[in-house]
């Protein structure tokens, strides 16, 4: 039996009928067509599926779509636009913070969380590396990802 979900995604109210076992990542990709959020491991380890719920990074493969009811979800599509990139997106572009790009949406959403959690403190490379623990880059391109987040921290 399907359930109706009504939630706010990227500032827009959306709704859809889903099976209870539909994951949030399936809802945003398949029902809403927002395919910027990727599925990597599907086991809560890699962070490719990271979105923000109520302003905090979460793994959208480990939450049910029905649990977003009444909450604010922001995906990679919601933070900037071509020509008006979010400072984190711009920093990834300028610092070559990606290789194949598969992990990048999740890295950017996690990166924004890192900068926001550490507002008012100096964001050391060590902190960035530690807080990226839940995001895995299969191209192993961590150096430029860390540089990108450090650069964005100065502009956010």
């Amino acid at each position: 039996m399907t359930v109706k979900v009504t939630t706010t995604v990227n500032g827009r109210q959306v709704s859809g009928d889903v099976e209870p076992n539909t994951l949030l990542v399936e809802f945003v990709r398949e029902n809403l067509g927002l395919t910027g959020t990727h599925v990597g491991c599907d086991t809560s380890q890699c962070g490719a599926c990271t979105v923000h719920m109520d302003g905090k990074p979460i793994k959208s493969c480990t939450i049910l779509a029905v649990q977003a009811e009444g909450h604010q979800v922001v995906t990679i599509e919601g933070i900037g636009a071509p020509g008006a990139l979010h400072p984190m997106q711009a920093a990834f572009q300028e610092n070559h913070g990606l290789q194949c790009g598969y992990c990048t949406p999740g890295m950017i959403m996690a990166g924004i969380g890192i900068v926001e959690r550490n507002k008012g403190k100096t964001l050391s490379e060590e902190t960035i590396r530690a807080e990226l623990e839940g995001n895995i880059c299969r191209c192993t391109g961590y150096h430029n990802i860390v540089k990108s987040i450090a650069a964005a921290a100065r502009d956010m």
Partner: protein
Amino acid sequence: MYNFTYHRAGSVDSAAAKLAESGDGKLLAGGMTLLPTMKARLAQPSDLIDLNEIEGLKGITVSGGTVTIGAMTRHADVAASAEVAQAIPALAKLAGLIGDPAVRNRGTIGGSISNNDPSADYPAAVVGLGATVVTNKREIAGEDFFTGMFETALDEGEIVTAVRFPVPEKAAYFKFPNPASRYAVVGVMVASTSGGVRVAVTGAAPCVFRQSDMEKALSASFSADALAGITQDADGLNDDLHASAAYRANLVVVGAKRAVAEIA
């Protein structure tokens, strides 16, 4: 994952009622363990009763020498709490070492202790600090709560509502994380409390345990030197691809010494 019927509970009583009515229902807290288990088709609950919208289960209060943490309080909120950091810094640190930031934004103390993973961090805090687990039916002393691997003293249909931690004189937590999963290969909570010295070990054995030899030695003299002659028996400790029982036994001693050195 197999399908199920979803219920959003508005109160603990209605969650308990829905749980009792359902054939094989399960409570859904942070979902950080339950949903992966269901995705892997290792569990097939008939119903999920979601506790996330029950406001009364969230939050931290510090008063009268006690830190009370609601069952649905996220690891990130315990880690970031200035009040917890002030009253029991070791507890804030422990919460901040669980998994990664996204896991900490969803995972809850109630879900963690109810699940009682042998490598979970919170059991070391609950036992090591002499906490009390509060449920919708009764209060359970922390050390009676964890009964075995993935087993607790909770009855069928019983819901954890909060955990009460008495503020210790001093406490420190050592964790040796698995480099891949971040779960504790070994975690040791050492605390000097009004009820005496407590040393609780997680990760090393199938269930959290108190290390009584260390407790005795530290009661006589609270210093890392007091642990000099103490060894941990490797018998019965976990032995797997992550670490042998002998390695874990050694880590228990190293961890306890480091924790004591931090606060002695």
